[in-house]
């Protein structure tokens, strides 16, 4: 190869940037270690613009705290590391660092909670560690049901999504160690027919119950391949 007489010595930076833009954020970060020229190409806006979701401008425009970043790479990582409150603080938006896919979190006010309007069952409060202004605090219920709906068009296409319930256990919680049912469904507006597997999850796992009291937050997940039409519940 080295002996071949060739007109090519090295590729111009925009050519290298074009190639890197078809790899992944991880590959682009590693490419910065190849050489100074590669670093310049791998950090260019042309590369990171392609890793950002195509509609990121529209999503971010719903935020009241505008981001000030000098480069697209900086902007990308800012969206990964600091979730942005959008839609009047009703939900937060961030990017998955390794894929650039869109992730959302709904605030408690935006999800349907059974008995939420009955003060003896639920109350509204605020937590310093929550990104949202208000959180719902469970006092006591005999029927715990939480349902969140998101338009699937908001999600990144061709992506497997997980749904999580993010919560904090109070010191004196009780009765949460029994199994619960969780599912992610595609809901079509025109029909009430839904589909999706039902998984069994535990808010407090049946083992090591005593140690759970000190936990700050926990998540459980239900997996469902995202499809474009309809909503995700």
């Amino acid at each position: 190869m080295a002996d071949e007489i060739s007109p090519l010595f090295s590729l111009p930076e925009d050519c290298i940037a074009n190639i890197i833009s078809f790899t992944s954020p991880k590959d682009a970060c590693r490419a910065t270690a190849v050489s100074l020229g590669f670093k310049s190409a791998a950090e260019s806006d042309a590369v990171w613009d392609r890793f950002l979701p195509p509609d990121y401008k529209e999503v971010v425009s719903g935020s009241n705290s505008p981001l000030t970043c000098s480069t697209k790479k900086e902007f990308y990582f800012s969206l990964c590391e600091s979730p942005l409150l959008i839609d009047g603080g009703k939900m937060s938006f961030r990017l998955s660092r390794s894929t650039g896919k869109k992730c959302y979190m709904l605030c408690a006010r935006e999800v349907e909670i059974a008995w939420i309007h009955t003060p003896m069952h639920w109350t509204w409060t605020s937590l310093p560690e929550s990104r949202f202004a208000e959180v719902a605090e469970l006092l006591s219920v005999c029927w715990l049901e939480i349902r969140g709906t998101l338009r699937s068009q908001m999600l990144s296409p061709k992506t497997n999504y997980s749904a999580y319930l993010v919560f904090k256990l109070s010191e004196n919680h009780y009765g949460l160690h029994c199994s619960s049912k969780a599912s992610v469904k595609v809901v079509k507006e025109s029909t009430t027919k839904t589909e999706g597997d039902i998984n069994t999850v535990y808010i407090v796992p049946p083992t090591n119950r005593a140690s759970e009291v000190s936990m700050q937050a926990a998540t459980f997940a239900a997996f469902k391949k995202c499809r474009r039409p309809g909503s995700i519940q």
Partner: protein
Amino acid sequence: MVTTDEKGPLTAKKKSVIIRSCDGDEFLVSESAAVLSTSLKKILEEKEDRLIHLSDIDNKTLAMVIAYLSTHADDGLSDDLKRSFDQEFVSGKEFDVLKYLVLATDTLQVTCLCYTVAKKMADIMKNKLVEWVRREFDIQNDYTPEAEAEIRRLDAWAWDDRQLEDD
């Protein structure tokens, strides 16, 4: 290969041009194919001469680009056929060949092919070691060992969790 083009201004409907590679090989190409390259289109608009000399594209690479242009200028082929031609076109090609191709398509401004080739190169480059990238792109490492270690430390998350390949 030489067709009955170039009969003069009266039958100027299907004109062709001659494109010469840096190593002197000449290719007869229909103008409809040539103008799919933005650079060639500009040259043809600016000069009467039907001979274009490309001083930085070798004959092997030029032959591939012309095959691509001619296929895409063929009105008889459906878009689906052209798409499968594109996939076939880059499959199995050596990284070194793709490097010449991406540079040629960048120079000739054949945007679609440039993207197809760049994407193919990206697919090969994914999850490869930095040493592999330097070798395949003929890149001299111009970092000091300390500077390179610092770069790797800054983006530590990108290095930690997968098996990187060297071939």
